[in-house]
């Protein structure tokens, strides 16, 4: 501990900064979280459950889960491959590759959605060919998965990459010397070493896939009860002046977001102990 107080440690300054930080967090973040649940449960628990159980909302939940079931494993595999290449090897253009991996973060989801339209839509590169062969990508499940893949591609790599770089390759070299195969080394040495970061990356990818709105709203076609994911369903209900239904659906996604944050807290606690 220091002998003298640090800058900002005098009681009035400290009180002012803490008060402002709490007030701002409560106003900007706490308020929105609270009103989701307040509005959803305003008509009562029975009405809340009934709102959730409408066929369109249930279908939206199913479609959202089905999207995550495909998109999350694919982007997890991609994140691991990308992190392995970047963390364990030196090569030219590495900086460029990292920038490319992180590129989807910087691009508006609307731009991503439009870009996919120009690949798989009728006015796009592959659209006419796909149409001829009776393959439906645009305004259907495949496009929803593709748009979700774009938006969430960087998350797993970004969570595990710094850790893998920091840990170096000594343990992997030892495993290989002992006769383990490359995949065995990845599976029993590398991944266990980054397991918490990997878990958080997967959970975050899942939350973002399930919550993606802009890109999916361009490519899904918004067909009620067919290609509406949960965030699109929230918009639809909201625009139908069905606020209670919209907020009931929103509690599902807010719940997933809260679980994601709890996972992060638990991981930080576990890491703090080890």
């Amino acid at each position: 501990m220091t002998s003298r107080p640090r800058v900002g440690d005098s009681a009035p300054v400290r009180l002012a900064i803490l008060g402002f930080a709490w007030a701002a967090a409560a106003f900007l973040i706490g308020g929105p979280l609270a009103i989701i649940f307040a509005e959803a449960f305003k008509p009562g628990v029975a009405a809340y459950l009934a709102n959730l159980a409408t066929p369109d909302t249930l279908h939206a939940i199913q479609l959202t889960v089905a999207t995550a079931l495909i998109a999350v494993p694919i982007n997890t595999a991609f994140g691991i491959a990308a992190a392995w290449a970047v963390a364990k090897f030196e090569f030219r253009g590495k900086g460029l590759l990292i920038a490319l991996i992180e590129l989807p973060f910087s691009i508006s989801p609307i731009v991503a959605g439009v870009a996919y339209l120009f690949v798989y839509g009728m006015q796009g590169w592959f659209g006419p060919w796909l149409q001829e062969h009776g393959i439906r990508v645009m305004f259907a499940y495949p496009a929803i998965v593709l748009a979700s893949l774009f938006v969430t591609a960087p998350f797993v790599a970004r969570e595990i990459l710094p850790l893998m770089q920091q840990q170096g390759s000594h343990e992997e070299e030892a495993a290989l010397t002992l006769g383990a195969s490359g995949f065995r080394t990845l599976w029993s040495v590398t991944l266990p070493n980054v397991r918490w970061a990997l878990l958080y990356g997967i959970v975050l990818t899942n939350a973002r896939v399930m919550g993606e709105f802009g890109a999916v709203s361009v490519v899904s076609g918004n067909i009620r009860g067919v290609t509406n994911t949960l965030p699109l369903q929230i918009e639809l209900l909201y625009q139908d002046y069905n606020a209670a239904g919209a907020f009931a659906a929103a509690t599902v996604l807010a719940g997933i977001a809260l679980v994601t944050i709890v996972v992060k807290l638990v991981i930080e606690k576990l890491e703090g102990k080890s």
Partner: protein
Amino acid sequence: MSRTPLPGFRLALGLTLAYLSVIVLLPLASLVWQASGLGAARFWTVITGDRALAAFRVTILSALAATAINGIVGLALAWALARYEFPGKRLLDALVDVPFALPTAVAGVALTALFSANGWYGAWLAPYGITIAYAPAGIAVAMAFTSLPFVVRSVQPVLEDLTDDVEEAAQTLGAGSARIFTSVVFPAIFPAFLAGLSLAFARSLGEFGAVIFIAGNQPFRTEIAALLVFIRLEEYDYPAAAAIATAMLALAFVMLLVTNAIQLWHLRYTRAS
């Protein structure tokens, strides 16, 4: 250079490049190709049309306002989390992650409900003649919500790494707290602060889900660029949608370069000190 005998380099790099090509580069290339089909003159006419220019102005001004809000709020949060111990610190830290994890559409409906005339905040602001929902201020609030974590998470680790001996030295030399903040602490966190601001600004420029619920979406007044792209698509005006989306993509690349330049400068700065 590589002395590690680890296997799988070709496989991992090949998979990564193939995946990025199909998922990221192919769509972006098709977008730019579609826009280039317009020719330079028509492209320019579309993106400088009255409505498009108004949408870009609304987007950029709102993003600047949101970034300013986050400069102040984000710095205070980072300061509190990095330098103070207090009850509920974990909760405050977790709250900062909410905008990252909460879907933008959910944030959008929640903020709209809060700020609408009869909402919790709206009813309280109305007597003062302040309208946030369905007004330009609402766009800035929504953008501020989604981009809040960027400033906090950029500045917080740098503040945590600052050792107190520099501040003590300044104290010994007779500097007061205000002087130490402006000439010792702030210069040290400035590059990270700037990087956080530019990330927040870039994110705000592209934000869609949180904004469209609260904005009111009146052309020329509260219509953002991302929404105009969406509207042009619904009108089957694909060339216009491609042109405006390409302009947004170009803006995103500029912001990416700016952020990278700041981060490089930051890296050199921390290495030198």
